[in-house]
């Protein structure tokens, strides 16, 4: 395939899902079969395109110099144009690979998750999770079974739109379309977290997620605007030239003594802090678990939150220009990694543990970027997407199995997501158990075999090798906690004996759910082998470190692989195995939350961040909106002035009427003239007596008077 053909193909990668979205919304939403067929076919087409592009990308020699890139004019802005375009370089090819795989797997998984093929529920409503249906078998026994999601088609429409946003973001060659994809995902995240909008908690979580990420987005938009005003372009390939980067590094921004590059980097990074749920904007991600589990896996583990990290990786050439910004990035990442890991230790909801784990792992990547470990960050991004999607899908499978048990016993008070209600599921759900184990071990960094080991080890090695001791120590401790809470989760969920009747009656899930688990666990193991460092004892050099060469070539200056040192390796072995072992030792005999010694209320309540934010930001904002802006300003001052106009105008009218119109105009001209006429008439009436004699006398008098007058005037004149 020619270079040009593949470049054109890239344009078509994001399109099938958005077409699927339109088709489902407009035409097929009545038919559940058609809707998921359309959505999955679209995801498959995108996957196929992505695989062809990826395959061609790794075949090209010196791919970084000749990426698949093209662009067209989009919006005229005076003399220039804002362009849209596609760019597949080593970085985006790598990201495209895992995005296409995880998206396709999660689409397939959603079919089983939403109980396709099951009967419609007895009391199910749109906006609420399905409650189960009663069926009667051939022998006349009644059973309660899982029921199909009432808004099945709507779900596939939303996730298709989401896939469009994500693929657009990955293939775009400029930060503007990247931002467009970013916002589409933000919208879909909102819609899907609030998918079961009948639940108040889901509605609140959706709003919280949207508002919190918006804060980051606004700063990011400011960063984009600033970048555009300094450089006059938003295209990656035009910005990442030596000349423009030099300008960015040398122009002062006037804020905190940062260079323009530093400030732009910081603003863009705040966008990532929101999207990738880093401290202090991490609060939305755990609540986002209110959404259906495929959504948690896709949006809140594998793709959207990864897109936040991807954006920073993409803008790395700018961000890395200013050391101050890099320090901020490194410390926020490392702090988040540790901070979220400590919370994860004390959570009992199977999905919330994974949510905090995601925050923590994203912190690893951000920290890696902050210490210039570019390749390590990308590597962990990819491996994490695979194993965290696997873990979320596994947890969804567990919850599904537990719901099966709940329907069997009919005790709806049992929370199918609480790990203390589980136990012993390894026998009931073997495929889920083994794949979850693989995912969990990958997350913990179980040595040599799992992908997570290689990527996390590389981050630690970079931190150590470049002398960032504090970051190294923080991340190492976070890695230890990661292994610990992962083993806690596996022990509580799968090992031991069932702690409830519901766990006793849990059931393995259908193939549409287990097949994606198997595929993802394949990657969770093997993907690590493409990035084995060359100087690694025994294994180094057996397989070439393809990942480092390929991804590293994206940067103009190829990053040097760090010298091998035994200390980080020993550290990662100790923390992974130690954490796993300790987790098993501590939790193998724990059967209830009361026996769990680590349930400190500080951790349990997530360091009270929700409460603190509520007091500092949410309540004052509401108060300001209600009392100051609305009641005082809008209704009081502005409407007050308006309402004053009415009475004032009326008052002026009355005054004119009462003090001018009535007393003067009316008195003299209106009524006055009538009154005068009347008065004259009344006073003339006495002479109209009707007596001839009197008239004659009057006539004579008049004659004399007038005659005298006339005579007098005539003689004088």
């Amino acid at each position, binding site marked *: 395939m020619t270079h040009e053909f593949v470049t054109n193909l890239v344009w078509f990668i994001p399109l099938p899902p958005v077409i699927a979205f339109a088709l489902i919304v407009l035409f097929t939403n009545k038919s559940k079969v058609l809707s998921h067929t359309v959505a999955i076919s679209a995801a498959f087409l995108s996957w196929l395109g992505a695989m062809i592009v990826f395959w061609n990308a790794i075949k090209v020699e010196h791919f970084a110099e000749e990426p698949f890139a093209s662009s067209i004019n989009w919006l005229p802005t005076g003399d220039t144009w804002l362009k849209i375009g596609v760019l597949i370089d080593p970085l985006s090819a790598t990201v495209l690979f895992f995005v296409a795989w995880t998206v396709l797997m999660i689409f397939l998984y959603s079919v089983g998750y939403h109980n396709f093929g099951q009967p419609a529920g007895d009391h199910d409503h749109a906006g609420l999770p399905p409650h189960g249906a009663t069926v009667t078998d051939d022998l006349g026994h009644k059973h309660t079974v899982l029921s199909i999601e009432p808004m099945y088609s709507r779900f596939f429409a939303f996730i298709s739109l989401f896939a469009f946003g994500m693929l657009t973001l990955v293939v775009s060659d400029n930060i503007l379309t990247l931002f467009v994809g970013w916002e589409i995902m933000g919208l879909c995240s909102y819609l899907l977290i609030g998918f079961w909008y009948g639940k108040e908690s889901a509605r609140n979580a959706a709003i919280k997620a949207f508002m919190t990420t918006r804060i980051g987005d606004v700063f990011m938009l400011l960063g984009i605007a600033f970048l555009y005003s300094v450089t006059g372009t938003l295209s990656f390939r035009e910005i990442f030239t030596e000349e423009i980067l030099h300008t960015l590094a040398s122009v002062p921004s006037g804020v905190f003594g940062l260079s323009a590059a530093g400030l732009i980097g910081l603003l863009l990074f705040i966008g990532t802090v929101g999207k990738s749920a880093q401290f202090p904007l991490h609060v939305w991600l755990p609540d986002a678990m209110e959404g259906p589990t495929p959504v948690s896996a896709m949006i809140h583990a594998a793709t959207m939150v990864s897109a936040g990290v991807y954006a920073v990786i993409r803008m790395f050439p700018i961000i890395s220009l200013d050391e101050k910004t890099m320090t901020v990035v490194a410390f926020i990442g490392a702090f988040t990694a540790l901070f979220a890991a400590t919370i994860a230790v004390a959570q009992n909801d199977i999905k919330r543990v994974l949510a905090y784990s995601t925050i923590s792992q994203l912190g690893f990547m951000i920290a890696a970027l902050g210490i210039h470990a570019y390749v390590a960050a990308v590597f962990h991004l990819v491996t994490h997407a695979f194993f965290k999607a696997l873990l979320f899908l596994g947890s969804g499978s567990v919850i599904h199995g537990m719901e099966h048990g709940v329907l069997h016993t009919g005790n709806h008070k049992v929370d199918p997501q609480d790990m203390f209600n589980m136990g012993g599921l390894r026998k009931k759900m073997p495929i889920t158990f083994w794949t979850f184990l693989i995912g969990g071990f990958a997350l913990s960094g179980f040595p040599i075999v799992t992908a997570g080991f290689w990527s996390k080890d590389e981050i630690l090695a970079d931190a150590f090798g470049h002398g960032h001791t504090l970051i190294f120590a923080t991340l190492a401790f976070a890695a230890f906690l990661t292994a610990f809470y992962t083993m806690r989760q596996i022990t509580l969920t799968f090992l031991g004996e069932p702690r409830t009747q519901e766990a006793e009656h849990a059931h393995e899930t259908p193939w549409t759910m287990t097949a994606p688990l198997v595929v993802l666990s394949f990657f969770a193991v093997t993907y690590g082998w493409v990035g084995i460092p060359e100087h690694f004892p025994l294994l180094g050099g057996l397989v070439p470190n393809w990942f480092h060469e390929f991804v590293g070539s994206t940067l103009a200056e190829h990053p040097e692989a760090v010298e091998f040192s035994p200390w980080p390796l020993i550290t990662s072995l100790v923390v992974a195995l130690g954490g796993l072992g300790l987790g098993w030792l501590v939790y193998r005999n724990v059967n209830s939350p009361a026996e769990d010694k680590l349930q400190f209320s500080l951790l349990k309540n997530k360091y009270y961040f929700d409460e603190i934010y509520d007091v500092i930001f949410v309540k004052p904002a*509401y108060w300001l909106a*209600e009392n100051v*802006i609305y009641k005082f300003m809008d209704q009081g001052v502005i409407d007050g002035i308006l309402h004053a106009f009415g009475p004032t105008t009326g008052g002026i009218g009355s005054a004119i009427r009462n003090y001018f119109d009535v007393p003067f105009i009316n008195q003299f001209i209106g009524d006055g003239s009538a009154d005068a006429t009347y008065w004259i008439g009344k006073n003339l009436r006495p002479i109209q007596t009707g007596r001839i004699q009197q008239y004659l006398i009057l006539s004579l008098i008049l004659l004399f008077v007038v005659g005298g007058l006339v005579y007098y005037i005539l003689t004088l004149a």
Partner: protein
Amino acid sequence: MNFPILSVITFLPMFAAAIMLMMPANRKNETRAVALAAASLDLLLSGWLYLQYLLGDMTGYQFIEQYNWLPALGINLKFGVDGMSTPLVLLTGIVMFTGVLISWGDEDPHVKAGIQDRPREFFAFLFLLAGGVFGVFVSLDLFMLFFFYEIAVFPMYLLIAIWGWVKTREYAAMKLTLYLFIGSVVALVGALAMYWTQYQNTGVLSFDMIQMESAGFSATFQYIWFLPVFLGFAVLGGIWPFHNWSPDGHVAAPTAVSMFHAGVLMKLGAFAALRVGVMLLPEGAKQWAWLLMIFAAVAVVYGAFIAFRPNRHEIHDRLLVRFAYGPGGAGRFHAQP
């Protein structure tokens, strides 16, 4: 002479309104059919106009029509569209079409937006309004622009006061109408000042806006008259702090009227403010850009706060946010000429 498409687009709704008013009141469905037919035709025509403009060379005013009306005073019916008004004409066509559909009002109690009470009068007023809106977008004569502007505003009073939400409709309709008329009167004073100054400068009595662009208004003149003209029109665009008629109007108005209100009527304000204020008085716009930007910036934040206040009953308040962008864009546009 070419097909007078702009006149047809503008007068077709008014013509349809006249026909509907002559139909028997109990023939509700026939009335609705006439309304839908006229709206569809207008949608097609405006879509065709848009395509023609896109496929053409997309420069300057096109499809110009001119008819004498009061030549002694320089008042002519002059129509024409440019790149700014063509999409707005299409937008009006779409809103008109969808507005008719949403007001269809069969007996289904779930269709809350349907108009079952006197649909004949409702559609007639709605179409009169639509005709006025089309007229403003295509007018190139300042007098005709005012003429259609008032035609567009007036039926709003009836539509809200008769078919609106019982509790606040009279208050809202009165507030809206008074507010908008005061705004337009202020703008009219400015327009007459332009008319007269042009006569003094060039000796030509004309309301033609294309001629007025080269009338040579002095910087002082522009500085003085920009604000009344711009703000007078921008009241209809809901510019802060002259926006309060709008949330009340939205709350009270029936759905289709709200659509017109937000979809096109408020664009009318911003459009006229741009067309008359910014295009004829560009120097004034530059001088005053700072004030407009302050208004716009305040409106964005202010509207956002009002929209998320708790216990809100009037969901339409959120629309305030959007009002800011039109005038705000104007401010930015001329801050960097």
